[in-house]
């Protein structure tokens, strides 16, 4: 029997498979490893950021700073490597430390100043974007042997598709994220916080440590997503990735995570990313559709999923009430 908690995940999976099958019926070429490989690569940075967002939303919070942190990271790395000629690996490490500390600071403010996550991360969004402008307002191209090597690294699928380093990184992040969420005490605490912070505290969950950890994780993954984005575009640009946090939220919710927190799966977010990628791919194949259709379909799906989640909550409440009536 399927746990009602995971019904939205199953629904997302079914929708993806049905939609993919429909696409393939219309464009048989879409069933190729090439398409899948590109889909994974094109959405790698979004997927990595969405894993962080999954933890944040599972805990009942929100992180609006993701897009800005990605832009900051890409500009920071591009300037460090391109203009200052720092070793890319050092630049990567530095930017990950910065973004993690940035996320942790937001977590501290949310917990200890009791400011809603929406407000804190909104401030973080402006701050990170502003810092990116401060470093450079131009698009900074980068080129370095190490970066070229990473960009050139891939596995070839049968059929010509490529599993690039960025796609592998995303898959790794999803795998680790799923284990952390499902099999560690930290993960259990995240779900507990999302269920009911007061109860969680009364049950001995270290609420402060967990909150800081969640936003630090989101900051870290935003930094990592920024690195993936830099590799993907071979440049850093402070105007890039505006609104990526919203795409990430959409992927998380379409993947079946309850927007109010407490229920959902990291694997669901992966499906959410695949659905978004599939829509984009379909539009490319069709060739006549405006790319804004991506947004429209995502919007419609979001509505559908929020209604589905409400419906499940309502249904299980009612079933419980009926069960109690029968007992009485």
């Amino acid at each position, binding site marked *: 029997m399927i*746990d009602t908690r995971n019904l939205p995940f199953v629904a997302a999976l079914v929708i993806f498979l049905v939609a993919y099958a429909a696409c393939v019926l219309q464009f048989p070429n879409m069933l190729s490893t090439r398409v899948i490989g590109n889909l994974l690569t094109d959405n790698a940075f979004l997927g990595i950021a969405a894993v962080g967002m999954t933890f944040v939303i599972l805990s009942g919070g929100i992180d609006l700073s993701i897009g800005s942190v990605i832009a900051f990271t890409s500009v920071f790395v591009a300037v460090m490597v391109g203009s200052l000629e720092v070793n890319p690996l050092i630049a990567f490490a530095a930017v990950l430390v910065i973004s993690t500390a940035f996320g942790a600071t937001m977590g501290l403010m949310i917990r200890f100043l009791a400011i809603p996550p929406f407000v804190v991360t909104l401030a973080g969004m402006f701050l990170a974007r502003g810092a990116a402008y401060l470093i450079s307002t131009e698009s900074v191209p980068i080129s370095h042997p190490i970066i070229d090597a990473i960009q050139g690294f891939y596995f070839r699928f049968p059929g010509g598709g490529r599993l690039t380093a960025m796609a592998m990184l995303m898959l790794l992040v999803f795998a680790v994220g799923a284990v952390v969420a499902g099999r560690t005490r930290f993960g259990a605490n995240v779900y507990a916080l999302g269920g009911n912070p007061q109860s969680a505290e*009364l049950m001995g969950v270290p609420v402060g440590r967990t909150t800081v950890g969640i936003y630090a994780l989101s900051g870290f993954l935003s930094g990592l997503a920024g690195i993936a984005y830099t590799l993907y575009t071979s440049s850093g640009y402070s105007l890039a990735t505006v609104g990526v946090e919203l795409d990430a939220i959409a992927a998380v919710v379409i993947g079946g995570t309850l927007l109010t927190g407490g229920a959902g799966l990291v694997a669901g977010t992966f499906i959410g990313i695949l659905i978004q990628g599939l829509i984009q791919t379909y539009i490319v194949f069709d060739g006549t559709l405006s790319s804004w259709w991506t947004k429209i379909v995502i919007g419609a799906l979001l509505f559908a999923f929020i209604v589905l989640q409400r419906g499940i909550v309502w249904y299980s409440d009612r079933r419980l009430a009926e069960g109690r009536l029968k007992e009485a």
Partner: protein
Amino acid sequence: METTSLLEARAIGKSFLGNKALDGVDFTLERGEIHALLGENGAGKSTLIKILTGVYTRDTGSVTLDGSEITPANVADAQQLGIGTVYQEVNLLENLTVAENLFLGRQPRRFGLVDRREVRRRARSLLQGYGLDIDVDTLLSSHSVAIRQIIAIARAVDLSGKVLVLDEPTASLDSQEVEMVFAVLRRLRNQGLGIIIITHFLNQVYAIADRVTVLRNGRLVGSRKIADLPRMDLISMMLGRELQDITREHQATEETIAAGEAPIRFTGYGKRGSVTPFDLDIRPGEVVGVAGLLGSGRTETAFLLFGIDRPDSGTASIDGTDVRIASPVAAISNGFGFCPEERKNDGIIGDFSVSDNIALALQARQGWAKPLSSRQKAELADRFIRSLDIRPPDPDRPIKFLSGGNQQKAILARWLATEPRLLILDEPTRGIDIGAHAEILKMIEQLCIDGMSLIVISSELEELTAIAHRVIVLSDRRHVAELKGDAITADNIMKAIAAPSQTEAA
């Protein structure tokens, strides 16, 4: 040999902002004992519990557990020492499975990862000890409140193991479920655990407790073995009156009451799990008092009448026509007003000025499209500040800076401004000083003379005997008696409360 008591609290004192919440309270819990802690609102029960469970730290006094002094710094600390708590509602997480709830924060691990199979195995064997054979992988939300309560008890005992504190564990259970939880408690008692239980249901106190301790106004009234304590004595301990006291007899005159058919009638009004269906009719110029212990359904009755809770049975009629009162807005448009008990949370808007607070209900009735002009508001505020003698007489002062009595007057003014025909007052004199107390009672009498109908809920028996023309007595969420005229005495009210009700709690 164990000669010391399990838990001993001596001369516990605790103040909040100069108000003494607890004053020299002693409390002793033995091993293998179920000890009920009783008292009305504000008696200091929860403060005492919170000191024992580490939520608050005591100002004075000492607490010893197993003979050694303890000062739990927080809940986790108290748990470690052996004192576990189960709260009425918020104690477990509905979005997690039963097993996850039982072992949250202390999951067995293998290679650094949570060992789910082990969690399940331990959860199953733990619950088997409580005679609970449920699938531990199901979500907590799919289980009834009683099962959840037992799971919470299992977790608390497994975690702590010496003292179990239950804060109103049965408030939302039906009688079968209560019995289920009690069976678990009896078994734990027989295993030597000390159990402290807070409940408002006297039937349950007599069903489960070995001993009771009664607090009133932050002081210890007494601690007795339940076997030698008649119900009547327990109630008088709680309400703070001795039976032989000379009671102020019924004072309200019948003259104010309009003759003829009562224009406002509620028939068979009730809501499952809240208040058993009751009939109520009220005439202009009449004060109907509502008496009962805390948790007997007093406030629930008011919520039902004012449309905050929707009734699931019965009808309301005004002037002979049936009306549906499904929301406070509907109640207001039918000419009802309601001053709630929780003034701070439900009544005042602290940062609003006195005049804004007064204008609120009138504005709500007019609809937001027609805002009251600031001149109208000023006139309104002026009129009531003068007529009710609200002090300081400054309409622009944020209401949170006024004393409790003056806040209460402002809320009264809010409803009087709408010129209601029925005004429901829930504990209108709680937490206000003696002077304001008398003024509010005088005002109620005056409103009555002016032809308003009033329903006054109060735990002050003298108040009810002084002002009410009729008193409805509630017990275990049921209207058990109605007293009229000279029959309205404090003794009769207490007798009605004490009469064992036919059924257990609804």
